[in-house]
């Protein structure tokens, strides 16, 4: 398969993730959508690594996995903290800061 | 004595005033301003009129990386403006001394700092330094007006500061561009006027930079239609502040044209000559007409200043030495006249139940012949009565314009006529006629006289010998306008004076 196909899939996933972030109100799902975006980047990185035949992209992808894991951890921590504070777990209801 | 002493002496007195017990603050700053005045007088007396160029030059690299010099110098252009600044600040501080101010330490410190700012702007011989002082001198006034003003003072001072800084910031951009673009050749980056004058910028560049500078200066003066900040600002200011503000700050702007714009952007000056002349002309007419419709005496004087500054700009942009000489003399004259006028306005208001509306005054000359005489002298001087130095200024201004653009001079003369209308109207409606409801005639106090009379004496002195400044500024003014003059009037077909 041509590398381009992989890239197209990657772009599609990236945009699906982005659309998810923009539409979902549950922060848990938003975090999942962020995962999608990072994974899409990973796919692109690995595809490019294949295209160029060097390992940098794969290394990069692995690092991204770590980062994604960290973000998720923090994100989930925050959600738990918010839940503990008995605030609504809904991004649309967190609009105290504005203007 | 190096000029730095002159500049920083008021600032030092401000520092002392801010730190010493409050009751000493008025004395300290006033003493500081007196010493400054003494020094300024000394400079005038030891000024070498035959020498070309700057005297008492101080030139140090301040910010080497930006090519900014701490460069100060006196020449014919700023000699008398410095003297007048020192004089008027001393007299305004004296006037301030006669009243009680809340938070006196801050008040007097700010007042003295303002003097440093203005003197710095006059003495700076580096474009960046000039711009810095030009902006900086506004900050003390922000506090002075905002904290000690009257009425809607915060709004008025905000409007004033933003409006005038709008122009200044454009000027900042223009100034930086001047230095940077001038340094794009082989020359190292430098903002010193002497270095910048070596490089002739491309005309297109000159045009936009010129507009930046012109905007700054026209707003600061202010000229029509950029005087929107003036009515509110003038109404809000405490009188001593208003006096120096009106007298001195506007002159920095006019001086900027002579010091910066004409020598550095001669092509643009010639190119935009008509535009600026028209603005000046509009200011003359508009200011005069407004001055005779206002009833607030501050605004009468304010709009009168708009018209007078119109004349000054007119003279500068005649791009001829006569006009520029007249403008320079007129700067000195107007500053000297407007300060006693404002103080007299204050004295009048005190006799009209605190009202500054001329409809509440009238007949105030009855028991106050000295006050009336003082008012009359400065009023006649302000309307450029021949025999006053103001007339000499206007004579030269209009002569310059006449030789450059006949019709503009002809129309500008309407301003002379209107000036007589509004000044006499102000004089008659306050001092003469039947008294207003709350008006009570009373001779001015000794303290008021102490402030006003010396200034009137100065006005008279200058009327007797106006060549005193003229002779000293001749060379510098000619040098300032020379290039622009040549461009505006190519030698062929034009008669040299």
């Amino acid at each position, binding site marked *: 398969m041509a590398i381009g196909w992989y890239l197209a899939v990657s772009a599609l996933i990236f945009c699906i993730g982005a659309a998810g972030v923009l539409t979902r109100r549950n922060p848990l799902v938003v975090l999942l959508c962020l995962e999608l975006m990072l994974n899409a980047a990973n796919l692109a990185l690995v595809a490019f690594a294949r295209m160029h035949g*060097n390992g940098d992209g794969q290394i*990069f992808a692995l690092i991204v996995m770590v980062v994604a894991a960290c973000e998720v951890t923090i994100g989930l921590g925050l959600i738990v903290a918010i839940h503990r504070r008995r*605030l609504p777990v809904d991004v649309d209801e967190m609009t105290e800061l504005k203007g | 004595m190096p000029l730095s002493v002159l500049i920083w002496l008021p600032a030092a007195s401000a520092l002392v005033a801010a730190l010493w017990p409050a009751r000493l603050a008025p004395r300290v700053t006033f003493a500081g301003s007196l010493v400054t005045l003494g020094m300024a007088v000394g400079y005038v007396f030891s000024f070498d009129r035959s020498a070309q160029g700057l005297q008492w030059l101080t030139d140090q690299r301040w910010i080497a990386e930006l090519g900014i010099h701490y460069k100060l110098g006196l020449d014919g252009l700023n000699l008398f403006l410095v003297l007048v600044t020192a004089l008027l600040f001393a007299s305004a501080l004296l006037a301030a001394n006669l009243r*009680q101010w*809340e938070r006196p330490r801050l008040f007097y410190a700010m007042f003295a700092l303002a003097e440093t700012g203005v003197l710095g702007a006059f003495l700076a011989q580096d474009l960046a330094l000039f711009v810095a002082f030009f902006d900086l001198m506004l900050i003390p006034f922000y506090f002075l007006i905002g904290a000690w003003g009257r009425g809607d003072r915060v709004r008025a001072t905000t409007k004033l500061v933003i409006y005038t800084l709008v122009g200044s910031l454009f000027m900042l951009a223009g100034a930086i561009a001047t230095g940077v673009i001038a340094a794009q050749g082989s020359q190292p980056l430098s903002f010193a006027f002497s270095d910048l004058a070596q490089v002739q910028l491309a005309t297109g560049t000159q045009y936009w930079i010129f507009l930046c500078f012109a905007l700054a200066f026209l707003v600061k003066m202010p000229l029509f239609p950029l005087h929107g900040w003036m009515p509110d600002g003038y109404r809000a200011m405490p009188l001593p502040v208003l006096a120096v503000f009106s007298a001195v700050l506007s002159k920095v702007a006019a001086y900027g044209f002579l010091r910066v714009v004409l020598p550095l952007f001669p092509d643009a000056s010639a190119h935009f000559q008509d535009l600026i002349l028209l603005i000046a002309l509009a200011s003359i007419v508009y200011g005069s007409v407004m001055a005779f419709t206002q009833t607030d005496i501050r605004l009468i004087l304010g709009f009168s200043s708009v018209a007078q500054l119109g004349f000054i700009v007119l003279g500068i942009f005649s791009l001829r030495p006569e006009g520029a000489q007249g403008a320079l003399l007129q700067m000195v004259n107007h500053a000297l006249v407007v300060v006693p006028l404002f103080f007299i306005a204050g004295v009048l208001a005190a006799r009209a139940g605190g009202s500054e509306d001329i409809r509440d005054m009238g007949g105030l000359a009855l028991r106050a012949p000295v006050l009336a005489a003082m008012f009359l002298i400065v009023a006649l001087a302000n309307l450029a009565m021949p025999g006053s130095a103001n007339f000499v200024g206007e004579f030269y201004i209009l002569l310059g314009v006449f030789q450059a653009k006949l019709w503009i001079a002809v129309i500008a003369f309407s301003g002379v006529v209107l000036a007589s209308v509004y000044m006499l109207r102000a004089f008659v409606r306050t001092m003469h006629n039947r008294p207003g409801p709350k008006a009570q005639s009373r001779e001015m106090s000794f303290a008021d006289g102490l402030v006003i009379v010396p200034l009137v004496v100065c006005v008279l002195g200058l009327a007797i010998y106006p060549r005193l400044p003229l002779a000293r500024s001749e060379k510098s003014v000619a040098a300032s306008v020379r290039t622009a003059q040549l461009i505006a009037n190519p030698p062929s077909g034009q008669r040299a004076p």
Partner: protein
Amino acid sequence: MTGLAAAQAPHIDWAGLSPIVALVGGGVVVLMAGLFRATAMRRAVVPGLTLVTLATALGMTVWQWGEHKSIVSGALAVDDLSMFLNALFFIGAMAAVVLALRDSSPEESGHGEWHALLLSAVIGMAVLAGAQNLVSVFLGLELLSIPLYVMCATNLRSAPSLESGLKYLIVGSVGSATLLYGLALVYGATGATDFTAIAHALSAKAGLVDDPLTLAGIGLIAAGLCFKVSAAPFHQWTPDVYQGAPTPVTAFMAVATKAAAFGAFLRLFDVALIEAVTNWAPLLAALATISIVVGNVGALTQTSLKRLMAWSSVAQAGYMLAGVVVADQAGAKALVFYLAVYLVMNVAAFAVIVARERETPFGDDIRSVAGLGASRPALAWPLTLAMLSLAGIPATAGFIGKFTLIGAAVDGGYAWLGIVIVIGSMISLAYYLRVIAAMWLSDSRVAVPAIAGASPELDGDPPAPTSRRAPEAVAVAVLFGAATLFFGIVPSPLFDLARDAGRALGLL
């Protein structure tokens, strides 16, 4: 094929790495120290250790000044630019530590953890500022972001704090993902992750500079970095997060994050992507314009000082972008100089906000500084200087900063951008002066006779008498306020450093 045996462990220049090593070590020690049982220990020792760590790192940075090398297989640059920026991070972090001394957020989250997070963020910044490799860039960015996400939320009792944390996290992650995708595209186009290799690839292969793949990558990278420097239209997290986060964290975030992201900007755009400068410079100029307008316009009617500072920081980011746009030594120098100046004036302002938050019941509302000129000149003057400096009034460092930026813009052929900066400054006067007016002009009455009319007592109750004074915040305010003034009058020392830093990139 290269066998494992053939792998040579890279040479590690410990000297060059020393600031980061010190920070990592310090971070771990601080984390451990947080386990002390005694409150006094935690309250005094942990911040103390943090300060010592930062000071040590600062010392190491000074020690490495003048070096020009690439360490750990070229992952990190040790040059004057990174050292200069490091110094800014460390100073900003020290200020944050001092300001946080009596703040509730370290108490809430635990001193050890809080300070360890702070140090981690600093490490992330140091990595980002020195990164010479796309992977390092991304990692550095995340290492600085993730602790900050947490720190924003450390006021765990306060809903706004949590809200700001979540907003920052989610929007920040979208930004990171965008950046990452851009990095991936650039990698895809050039086949390299090292900056020098990327630059080489772009110049060697014809047409690559104008290739849509490359340019889309550059665009996404620009967007991601603009997010971090809070340039419009990627700025919207800024006001909310600044307002919600604990004020010391905000102060740190405002000055250090911006410096780090601009460091990355400089290295990425002015080194790796310099070949495409004609393509990206107009865009960045446009973004700078938008930021200047949006930031200044947004700040106009704010009543929360922190929000006001946030919007102002958006505008300031716009000003600073001009330094990147011109892509020459003068621009880099101006940007670096402005970053330092920005640190000084912002810390001064935030220190006053911190002090007033504790002294008055108004929080960070503008009422908290009403009448400050009369009641607390020691706080009023630093804030006044900071505001004047942010507005670019002469005799303050901000003036010199803006001067150099405009100069660089004009010199680089972006005179119009200089004008835009100037117009932005004009708008900004309206809100900076409002703060000054609140301090100095709100409660004075002029002692003139009835003529002037007694000016009524302005609204805004007098500050509640409180013993919750914060001398350390006052000290920070005074110190940085004085620095604002000092660098406005004697900028040369800072200029020398900025010049060296500007030279490090090897630009024209």
